[in-house]
Structures are given as C-alpha cells and as structure tokens.
C-alpha cells in the first residue's frame, strides 16, 4: 500500500470514527431500501437520491456503512474494520499497478478498438466498454518510438518529452473531441484546436492522425511536464456537440505541436475547466447510461508520475 493509500485509509477511518448519527429526520428512507441499494437492486436514479439524502443525514450514512460492512460479510469477503488496511486482493482506489495487467493485454492489440455511434445498439445496461458497434470508429493513442508508434492503453506510463498522437478511422464523418485532465483538475483541449491541420468533422474512410500531419513531418502532442495520472477522453458524434464546444472554447488549448501538460501548469481559467469537466462527465454518463445513443466516448488513463 502506498503512502497515499495509507493516508486515504486514515482519512476514511477518522471520518467514520467521528460519526454522530442524529435522530431520523423527515424523508429518511427505510433501512431495507438502503440495503437494497447496497446490493445493487435499485435503479441509479433512486440510488442517487438516497446518496444525496445521506450526505446530510449521518444516520442514513451510518446505515450505508452498515450495509457495506454486512454486504461484504454476506459475500464471504473479509470485512474492513476501522483502523485496518484494505485487505489484499481487493481493488484499492489508488492502485495504478492494477491497470498494468489490462495494459499489457490491450497493448498487444496494437489498436484500441472503439465503437459507437449507432443509436439503437446502446441498451440501458450497457457500459462504455460494452457497446456493440454498428458504425465503428477505430481509435488508437500512440507514443512515438524509435521503431515506430507504440500503442498506449490504460495504465501505461508516459513522461515529459514523450510525443503522443491519436489515430481515428471512422466509417462516416464524425466530430471528434480529445481532452486531457490531470489530478489537479487541470484540463487541456487537445482537439479540435486552432491551427491544426484537421478540423471537425473528420473525414471518413481513412485513418486520420491527430493533431495533424504534413507532407514532411507528423505533428504530435509533446508531454511537457509530469502531472500524476492523466485521463484522455475521446468523444465522437455524428453531429457537433455544441454545449461541449462552448465549454471547451473557454479551456486551455494545446497547440498543434505541443501538448503542454502537467500539474505545474496553472489552468488558464479554472472555472471554465470545471465547467468543461462537468460537461464531459455528463456526456460520458449519458453514453454509459444509454441515454444519449448518438455519442461515442472513451477514456484512456495513463500514469505520468512526478
């Protein structure tokens, strides 16, 4: 367990130890409903409402805690007791190394096959990773290497000086948006950006390299500094995403050949960054829940340690 993990465990233990449940107030849900939520038996909308209530009700928060502890006992796993560390074998919130297994498998595939865009195929229970494609986009994030491009996928490490690019191959013209975010909330629009060779919509039927390519050389986003964990979000749509574009216009923009990245850089407009992050999360949630079937979304998480 890393130092950060241990600090977070201490934080949670202190938080739990200081609980002082109040008497039930109006609108408290029944324990049986919280139990059902903990077992994954309630629709997400209801779960969200219960969690919103529990935020301001320490008794219901305690009920969720009891449900978590009992649920774990019910599934035969070792419980997490106050002051104890997370048992081995469980997925911890900060454990980048876990991603490397996935990384190796995905890297071998050479291209991250993404999906999307055709509405009806995204059912209510689909997750981003499970959508069956009808109109496919193949997109791959790459790092320039001596022997050619090195495919990047979840958990892989990048460092300052690395030059990254994305390849996109769509079967129909598509509006593509690429954004990166680091742990500090600093976000950069990687595409579309002013001055880049390509603009939306990207053409169909051919592999397009982003941010661009010229007859003599390729453009790439150069990693300029370390920033912890970096999340690259790729969104695509058959139609322009106007709300997202408005938010992105206020954010820090990468130049076509330099990807200014890392925690050392102050976001040019933190509030705009936060709004864009909200817009992104909403778009991702819409894809995941199947509510917006016209979107394609993909997140690729890389490690960029300081």
């Amino acid at each position: 367990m890393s130092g950060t993990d241990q600090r977070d465990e201490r934080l949670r233990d202190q938080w739990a130890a200081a609980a002082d449940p109040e008497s039930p107030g109006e609108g408290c849900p029944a324990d049986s409903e919280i139990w059902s939520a903990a077992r994954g038996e309630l629709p997400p909308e209801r779960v969200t409402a219960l969690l919103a209530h529990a935020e301001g009700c320490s008794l219901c928060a305690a009920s969720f805690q009891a449900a978590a502890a009992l649920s774990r006992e019910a599934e035969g796993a070792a419980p997490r007791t106050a002051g104890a560390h997370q048992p081995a074998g469980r997925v911890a919130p900060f454990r980048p190394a876990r991603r490397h297994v996935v990384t190796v498998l995905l890297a071998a595939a050479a291209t991250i096959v993404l999906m999307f865009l055709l509405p009806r195929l995204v059912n209510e229970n689909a997750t981003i990773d499970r959508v069956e494609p009808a109109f496919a986009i193949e997109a791959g994030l790459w790092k320039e290497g001596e022997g050619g491009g090195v495919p990047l996928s979840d958990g892989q490490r990048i460092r300052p000086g690395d030059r990254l690019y994305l390849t996109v191959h769509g079967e129909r013209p598509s509006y593509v948006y690429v954004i990166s975010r680091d742990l500090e909330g600093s976000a950069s629009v990687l595409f579309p950006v002013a001055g880049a060779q390509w603009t939306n919509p990207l053409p169909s039927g051919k592999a397009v390299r982003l941010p661009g390519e010229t007859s003599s050389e390729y453009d790439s986003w150069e990693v300029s500094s370390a920033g912890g964990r970096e999340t690259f979000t790729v969104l695509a749509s058959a139609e322009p995403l106007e709300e997202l574009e408005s938010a992105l216009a206020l954010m820090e923009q990468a130049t076509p050949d330099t990807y200014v990245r890392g925690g050392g850089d102050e976001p040019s407009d933190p509030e705009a960054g936060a709004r864009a992050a909200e817009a992104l999360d909403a778009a991702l949630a819409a894809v995941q829940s199947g509510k917006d079937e016209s979107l394609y979304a993909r997140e690729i998480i890389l490690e960029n340690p300081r």
Partner: protein
Amino acid sequence: MDGAPDPQGPPLPVEPEKLREILVRVVGRVCPSWMASQREDLVQEACLRILKVRRSAEEDQGLQTSYLWKVAHSAVMDEIRRRRRRPEAEMENPGLAEDHAPGRSPEAARGASEVREAVDEGLGRLAEPRRRAVQLWLYGFSLQESARILGWSAKRVDNQRYQGLAALRAWLEEKGLKP
C-alpha cells in the same frame, strides 16, 4: 453487470458465536465513538433479534437466506437509533463518551471530528459523479460494489473516485488538515 451478488447469499452463521463475531466487526465499523461503551450491548441485542427471526423462519421454512442479512442490517440500525434517542449521561457529556472510546484520546477524537466536518464540506464541493464515487468509498464499498450500486463501469468509478479523492486531499491541505 459484473460482480452482481448472489440473490440468496451465503446463509448467516447458525452458531451464535459466529453471528456475534460478524456483528462485532460490523458494529465496530459503524458505531460512532460516543457509543463505544455500548457496543457490546448493541451487538447482543441485535444478535438476539436476528436469532429470534431465524427461529421463526425455521418454523416457516420459507425465508430466504438473503432476508436474514437484511434483518441483521435493520437490527443493527434499530439499535443505534434506539440508543441515540436514549437520554443517557454520556450523550449529555460528549467528553465522557470520548473517554470510553477504546484507544482514542480526546484530542484524537476532536481531530477526527474536525476531519469529518471538513470531508463533508469538501464532498459537497465535488462534481456530482466524483461526489458519489467518493461517498461510497467513505462508506466502505469496494470498487466493484460501487459500480454495481451506481450502475457504472468499474473503470468509471475508479476514475471518478481517484479524481474526487485527489480534490478532497487538496481541500484538506488547504484547510491545514492532515489525516
């Protein structure tokens, strides 16, 4: 969705000692410091209630094993509520309760209280998806459990939780708090 629980789940242990062990662990996780001196009684009461329900169930032979886990949850929470309402001396004197909390000094208890307040405040400042992911983590749910509860992919939970906790840490540092 991956990781869906067995609708029945394993049966609750038949032996009162084992049932008690489970309840001690659960109550130890949930029971706040002011109630530390009452944990034994709370466990005992909850244990008795569960055993009573189970005896009825054996007579009926129609109760699902999953129901007994739900009963255990309800019994623990009912006992917490009941004791919270009870006007006992330690509730009128929080310092006394802190003295009863095993292994925790009054300073540590005050520090934890300060952290809790700041965490709750910081939680409210997070964007909705991050808030929910961190909230479930605080409650003790694993990544897979949180994914199942929220109807998200585990990857999304992991990412939202990671970013939410990073923001929460920054918030605590800003307030000069170090867990």
